[in-house]
């Protein structure tokens, strides 16, 4: 077999296809916006974990987690290129737009996966590398190749992949998993369904056209809205737990309660949206607020930790 027997390389007219993809196109394969959320929550796990880590090793750990998350994104784009081509939200991605071939994306994703996991293991510890490897496998294989196209509970179970980064960050520092890191996992895990089902409501037609069994398409708008409220309430409650266990202060508890209250209020607005509403403004507001909510909760946790540290230092000096 020669390189020109590879159908990716040959164009329809039989000429050899030479890539015109830029470095930016390959970067786009990594889903940078998802990566930024992963980096942020992994950094939160690193900062909130008890114990020190050398800042250089910590920075490299975050880089490996970011690259691992990006690799998952590339593998997802490789597998979902067929449905991405049909949905308006994803039609301009590098593979459906023809800038990168599927095999290039696969090779890129696999290479980054291996490098990110191995370097994290060598630089920090093998538990965090193992959890990163499992996260990549979970997202690319369990969610993308299996759950996404086969069950309306796809993003409930698959959402675990997005919840692992703070656990990895925590494991980088402590070398283990603890109750507190599991709470960080649960906050994101419970947040994911409300976040994605709000999106799925106003992108129902897109998902319908590619046969992805999102909850609104399978069970209807009413059921989806009920579930969004349930998961919003569970998320709001879970986010307050650190204040109840003493891992965070009462001040954090108050902020988390306020943010959680707004999150639940947004979900109730979605619940009250009439079925068949075309504009779905409450769902779009819910989706937008859910992103702010997660950033705000994890920021509040980190600020609370810094404040506690600063107060302790001042107390020690006095």
């Amino acid at each position, binding site marked *: 077999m020669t390189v020109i027997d590879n159908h990716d390389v040959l164009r329809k007219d039989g000429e050899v296809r030479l890539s015109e993809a830029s*470095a930016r196109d390959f970067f786009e394969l990594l889903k940078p916006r998802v990566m930024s959320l992963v980096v942020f929550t992994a950094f939160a796990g690193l900062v909130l974990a008890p114990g020190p880590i050398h800042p250089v090793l910590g920075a490299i750990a975050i880089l490996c987690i970011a690259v691992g998350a990006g690799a998952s994104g590339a593998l997802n784009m490789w597998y979902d290129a067929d449905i991405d081509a049909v949905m308006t939200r994803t039609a301009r991605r590098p593979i459906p737009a023809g800038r990168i071939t599927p095999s290039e994306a696969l090779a890129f994703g696999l290479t980054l996966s291996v490098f990110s996991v191995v370097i994290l293991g060598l630089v920090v510890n093998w538990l965090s590398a193992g959890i990163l490897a499992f996260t990549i496998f979970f997202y690319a294989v369990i969610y993308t190749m299996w759950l996404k196209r086969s069950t309306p509970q796809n993003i409930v179970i698959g959402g675990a992949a997005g919840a692992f980064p703070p656990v990895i960050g925590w494991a980088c520092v402590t070398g283990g998993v603890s109750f507190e890191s599991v709470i960080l996992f649960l906050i994101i895990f419970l947040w994911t369904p409300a976040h994605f089902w709000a999106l799925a409501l106003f992108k129902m037609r897109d998902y319908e056209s590619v046969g992805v069994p999102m909850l609104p398409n399978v069970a209807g708008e009413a059921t989806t809205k009920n579930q969004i409220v349930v998961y919003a309430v569970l998320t709001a409650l879970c986010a307050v737990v650190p204040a109840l266990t003493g891992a965070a202060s009462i001040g954090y508890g108050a902020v988390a309660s306020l943010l959680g209250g707004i999150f639940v209020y947004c979900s109730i607005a979605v619940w009250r949206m009439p079925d068949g509403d075309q504009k779905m403004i409450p769902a779009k507001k819910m989706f937008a607020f859910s992103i702010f909510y997660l950033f705000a909760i994890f920021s509040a946790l980190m600020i609370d930790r810094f404040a506690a540290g600063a107060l302790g230092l001042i107390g020690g000096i006095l």
Partner: protein
Amino acid sequence: METVKLTEAQRKSRRGRNIALGLALGGLVLLFYVVTLVKIGGNMLTG
């Protein structure tokens, strides 16, 4: 002899990819060097 001729767009994009790859590999070298210093300790710098 017939050879493959790159268009201007293909040449430019290949150059961009090569630069990005070079920077990534250089960054990796730097990363391993810095990690070695950190792990073995600062004593190396003072001899």
